[in-house]
């Protein structure tokens, strides 16, 4: 009887262990980063109230899913908020990560967005983002590089079925170190 009970305990412990191993993947799905949008100097088309809300929300979600996709090496996560060249480059990066075992981890500390161009027909918007990030380059479990950095991005977003999608996400040279 004791043996049986022990066996059961072992099984339960294994199951519990498996659960808690899978737990971090669930818990790591943190909330959207803080995004501030300034559309004062936007042209030639003025931004609509709903579009402003949507851009702020969707850009935040895009960063959230990008960080998760790079952390977990899951290119399927990119489908939600990326399209075109941005999605292709990120998918390529994830494929490279899988091949080399090197990963880039982003800890997002907020974005200051400035909308700079909104096409007359409302089908493309270009923005400048000043992103505060903690970037880690990890090889296996070893962190080979870690930095806190503020980076400038030039972003091109286009409307999708129910949200704005990031079509191009390019770092530009003006970099400021904290």
């Amino acid at each position: 009887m004791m043996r049986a009970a022990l066996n059961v305990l072992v099984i339960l412990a294994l199951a519990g262990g498996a659960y808690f191993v899978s737990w971090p993947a669930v818990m790591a799905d943190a909330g959207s980063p803080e995004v501030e949008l300034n559309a004062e100097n936007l042209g030639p088309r003025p931004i609509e109230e709903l579009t402003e809300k949507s851009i702020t929300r969707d850009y935040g979600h895009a960063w959230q899913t990008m960080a998760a996709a790079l952390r977990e090496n899951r290119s399927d996560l990119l489908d939600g908020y990326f399209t075109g060249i941005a999605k292709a480059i990120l998918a390529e990066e994830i494929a490279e990560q899988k091949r080399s075992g090197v990963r880039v981890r982003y800890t997002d500390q907020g974005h200051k967005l400035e909308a700079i161009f909104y096409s007359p027909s409302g089908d493309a918007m270009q923005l400048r983002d000043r992103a505060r990030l903690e970037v880690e380059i990890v090889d296996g479990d070893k962190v080979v590089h870690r930095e806190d950095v503020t980076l400038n991005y030039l972003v091109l977003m286009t409307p999708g079925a129910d949200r704005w999608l990031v079509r191009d996400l390019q770092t530009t040279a003006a970099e400021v170190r904290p």
Partner: protein
Amino acid sequence: MKYFVPLLITAATVVLIAIAWVNSGGMERERMRSSRTSEEAVRLLLTQAQARNWDRAHALLANASDVEKSAFVADLAGSNGSLLTFANLENFDLWPLHKTDREASMRVKLHYSTAVGPLEDVRDLKVQHEGETWRVVWPTTTVARVAPQVIPVNYLRWDIINRGAEDDWGVQNVDSPQVRILSMNALQRPDRIVIVGEVVNEDTVPAYVNVGATLLRPDGSTFAQESSFDKISHTLLPKQVSPYRIDFPEARMNQVKSVRMDVKSLLVAASADPVIEVSDQRLQTDALGKNLLLGQLLNQSGQVVNIPHVVAAYYDDSGKVIWVSDGYVDQALLPQIPVPFAVDLPDDVAPKVHNYHVNVNYFNVNRS
């Protein structure tokens, strides 16, 4: 004990089965197999029709020799892909109007479950006493037949070449049609908020249109979201106007600060055929005091329209849309054969109606 228990169990089982048989309408069913009264005769006929036992049902008619079986079947179960062919007779109510020893008149309300929702059909039937039994005299109708003819069809048709699934951003594309909401009027009804209005396709290509509305609370948050569903003509040819109606059940105006309208349009392949004429339109009050908009539909093309759907907009004297009602027509539209229709409108709206416009939408079995 050896005999008592089996006998007791057997007897108890038989008694229980008998009780349940009576409770679940076994007696009534037996009664329905006879037609010793005028009511029983109508019940028997409609029960057979319900079971789609057409031979038996037709044989039960007093004037079976005068009524074509196909016409009788078409009358109760539809033909030519009409709405009744997509329906089941769920149940019926009947009550006598008058009765003598020789004949009686019965009113029946047929409750159909159809592919687009419930449908009720009220009919008055004559019942005759023949020997020991009563029999229903079915109204003699003949199946409408179109005279052989050639109807040239040379209306326009728009076809679309769709873009592929691949992301071809920045290359040539065809924009969605320009559609516009012409009017919007939010009304408080006893049990709901209703938004009525009209939408027009301003473009030169056909548009597939859906109108949606969002009720917003004073704090700007969404209170409810609904769409026009089937109370609109979804396919609009260039410059065509369609009424729409959006219902928000259980909503009250004091809960809402504003309404956000949303019209979505899509470029679709479409044909300008068939053209359906809506003639003899008039507002009328029926015997039960219901306000109705009556008229006839005439299919001017050469193809059958299986399920016509009438959407009517009513205007007040300032030209504002004050109500939109709709109804499905249970007969198919054969070429050149007029088919009557009726849609109702609320009692409090009827006196304010100054004008109205009827739009005909349709479903064809082989083209959707």
